[in-house]
């Protein structure tokens, strides 16, 4: 084994940062926005199985950009930490701050001690009882953690998307408006859209991965917005896209579809399929099983169609 040339610590760190930044900037962007009822995740992601957005715990969600294998193992670690804590203490004792801290420590350790830093950037989002209590943490490859208000953008075109959002984002938007603001911002700077000369064009639903943490849902707040539900949320405003005709009802975050694996309770507070009786909005029968509003998972939605 040959001795490496001497490199100063500053140089080493700079090289690693540059390496990690390069890796991250190759990826597509993810935007995490707060809206009236919680937190909205929008990722530009053509894959429907390799998720960039996931559920950590009842009130906590996760979004990431960068190298899939690396952030996936971090996501799994987060789920494990949350479940172990929730099991040994109580479900209420699992907070976004704990998860974010663990990520920060781990990323920091890897950054300083290993030759190759993780090429990832993470967001841990926690939805609270009120919108003031919502938390968004940004975690970067070197282990720094920042608590940001309103929205977080990560990935290749983060600066452009952030600039776009700064102009258009307002606090307290409803889901439909927040989604439009987010998708517009992502589309405006997406290489996929500028490639075909798109001006003002929006990313199609197939290119998007959308999920929400909805504070109105009991127990498990995380829900993916897929299929027809996503189409109808996007469709109404994108002119000429008539695909969503007849499916113009409002989104139904609090009325999970058959097939929605919703929250589980601890034995003391048994929770059922997750429907809240009180949420009148759109909880009627107009949302057919084909709606595809999966809950924690995609798998559940498939099951609904077979029933």
């Amino acid at each position, binding site marked *: 084994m040959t001795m490496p040339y001497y490199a100063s610590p500053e140089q080493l760190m700079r090289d690693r940062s540059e390496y990690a930044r390069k890796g991250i900037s190759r990826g597509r962007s993810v935007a995490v926005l707060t809206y009236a009822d919680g937190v909205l995740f929008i990722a530009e992601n053509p894959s429907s199985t390799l998720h960039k957005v996931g559920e950590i715990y009842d009130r906590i969600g996760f979004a990431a950009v960068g190298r899939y294998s690396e952030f996936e193992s971090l996501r799994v670690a987060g789920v494990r930490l949350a479940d172990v804590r929730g099991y*040994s203490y109580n479900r209420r004792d699992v907070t976004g701050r704990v998860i974010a801290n663990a990520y920060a420590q781990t990323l920091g350790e890897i950054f300083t001690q290993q030759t190759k830093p993780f090429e990832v950037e993470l967001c841990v989002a926690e939805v609270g009882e009120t919108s003031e209590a919502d938390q968004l943490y940004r975690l970067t490859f070197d282990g720094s953690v920042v608590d940001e208000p309103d929205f977080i953008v990560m990935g290749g075109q983060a600066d452009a998307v952030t600039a776009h959002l700064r102009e258009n984002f307002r606090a307290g938007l409803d889901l439909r408006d927040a989604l439009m603001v987010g998708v517009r911002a992502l589309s405006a700077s997406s290489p996929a859209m500028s490639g075909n000369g798109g001006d003002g064009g929006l990313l199609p639903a197939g290119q998007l991965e959308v999920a929400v943490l909805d504070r109105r849902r009991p127990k498990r707040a995380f829900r993916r917005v897929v299929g027809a539900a996503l189409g109808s949320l996007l469709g109404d405003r994108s002119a000429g896209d008539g695909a969503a005709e007849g499916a113009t009802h409002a989104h139904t975050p609090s009325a999970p579809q*058959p097939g*929605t694996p919703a929250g*589980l309770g601890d034995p003391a507070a048994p929770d059922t399929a997750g*429907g809240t009786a009180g949420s009148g909005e759109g909880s009627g029968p107009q949302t057919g099983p084909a709606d595809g509003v999966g809950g924690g998972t995609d798998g559940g939605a498939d099951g609904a169609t077979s029933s």
Partner: protein
Amino acid sequence: MDGLTQSHTGRSGFPPAYLDRVGSSFTDFLGVTAPDLLPGRRPVPQIPVGDLTPHGTTIVAVTYHGGVLMGGDRRATMGNLISSRDIEKVYPADSWSVIGIAGAAGIAIEMVKLYQVELEHYEKIEGLTLSLDGKANRLAQMIRGNLGAALQGLAVVPLFAGYDLDAAPGTTPGRIFSYDVTGGNYEERGYSAVGSGSLFARNSLKKTWRPGLDGDAATRSLVEALYDAADDDSATGGPDPVRRLYPIVYRVDAEGAVRLTDDEVSAVAGAITEERAAAEGQG
């Protein structure tokens, strides 16, 4: 305890086991990182302790055309004493399945809690829900781990039922699985019961249950079975109108698992009580 203070606070980042990308089972993961949290990994008491701990009693499950129902009485006993009148012994395992427990209440409730996390954990990590057979099998493995304690009087015998999302058309989607203390796992046809009053409950169901019942008739059949069990088994509690305590009944159908309200169950229990009283009067 060292495990808890060190690795679960997350203060020092994730221990290596957390970042290891194998396995989606919460129980297996705890077995590696915090075995002291698992019910099956503790020293087994050297003497029989069955009479020193509360025991839950009768659980009944019946299928009907749209799914499956599970109900349990509210009594826990400790030797000859009633240790609880309002214990809950039926829980949702996840959105599509329910679990009822008979036996040592402390271990049983711990097991249910672990099982709920197990299913949710799998769902979050894999992005898919386990199949109903997979869930039933997973539960069998947890019971198997408790055999040592079971032999000292701390047996836990669950009853598991769920709505099978993958059921072939034409077959009934509601399915019931029963267990023995060794972890044996048996799928039941139509109905089943576990616990001290199960003999009487089963006999009652034999007369009132038939395939293809609708939901209301099946609910009645189930509550009546619990009534009959309470009639003959001192460890099973009947409906208690004085304290307004009624059996806990869960329904699992295409919409998911729902607990019937006390009003619904008390109406059914009330009707049964009245019919029995009238029959006595005529005799």
